[in-house]
């Protein structure tokens, strides 16, 4: 019985040494998915030529539903830097919010990886126009 207690106590001590276990937090092992791309078609006049959205997405989809997303929306004559967050819902929806440039947000809730989004201004939240993202 004494031996049993010693063994159990040792195992419990070992378990507590594993990082994160003592705090009931999962260990993350993020991956980066590079050059993930969409074709963009939008009603926003200023973004009419910005037809390519290319991002890297970083996160641990094994242990989490969250991703950091960052990249570029390319237009004729230039581009906008984009940065934001995405998460995967159990209903199969890919939700993504991206800051585009310095005062515009691209907000997407797409069933699968293609679908409808909208551009909003960050100041008032007014809708600038809609967009369709097509996963390449």
């Amino acid at each position: 019985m004494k031996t049993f207690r010693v063994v159990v106590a040792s195992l419990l001590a070992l378990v507590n040494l594993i990082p994160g276990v003592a705090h009931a937090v999962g260990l993350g092992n993020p991956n980066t998915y590079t050059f993930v791309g969409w074709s963009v078609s939008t009603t926003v006049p200023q973004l009419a030529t910005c037809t390519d959205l290319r991002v890297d997405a970083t996160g641990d989809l094994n242990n989490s539903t969250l991703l950091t997303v960052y990249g570029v929306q390319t237009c004729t004559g230039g581009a906008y830097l984009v940065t934001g967050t995405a998460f995967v819902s159990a209903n199969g929806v890919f939700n993504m919010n991206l800051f585009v440039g310095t005062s515009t947000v691209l907000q997407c809730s797409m069933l699968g990886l293609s679908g409808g989004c909208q551009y909003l201004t960050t100041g008032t939240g007014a809708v600038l126009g809609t967009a369709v993202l097509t996963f390449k």
Partner: protein
Amino acid sequence: MAGADASGESSRKKLVNAAFFIVLVVFLGLLSKVSGLFADDDRGSAIALATKPLVSETKSTPRLQERVKPENEIGPPPQVELSGVVGGAEGQRLAVVSVNKSLEAVVRVGDTIFAASTVTEIDQDSLTYRHGSNLVRVVIQDRKALPQNKASSAQLPNNELQVPAKENILPGFIANTGTGGQQSSVESKNGNAEFRRAFENKVNSLRSPL
């Protein structure tokens, strides 16, 4: 009496062993949950425990390996225009260059100006860079006369170099980015296939009962 003690002792030992076994199984289960050894499709498989790598995906490592490409795959040399050579604060020569018609940058010997191109020499009227195994020398270009009116961008022959008018862009627009983050000729693949797989696996795991 002695026989009864002996059988009692034997039963205690069996109980201890059984308890130890149960604790060991619980511990291994906890360990596997923490380290993510069990993927969704391998749930409950003891063989997966033995063979699954600790890192569930190493997608970023192959990506790193893809960048080490043989010389014949590094693509053509960039189009470099040398606007001038100036002296730096430490007495070194600095060259003002435009690579592939992008905005000018100041470079010094040893700087990488594009993908596989590195500056090897700067003298008073030229710049030499190495692209793969080739050395390319560029001399100072004659300065173009600045256009007199505001619509100077419209005079450029290549439509892709036209910077949109202010009312046609949103705040944060970065002009003349060249490829603007699009894939270079070196990286012809995108990450969509792998991302789609990861996304679908995640949706399936969220929908599956625990």
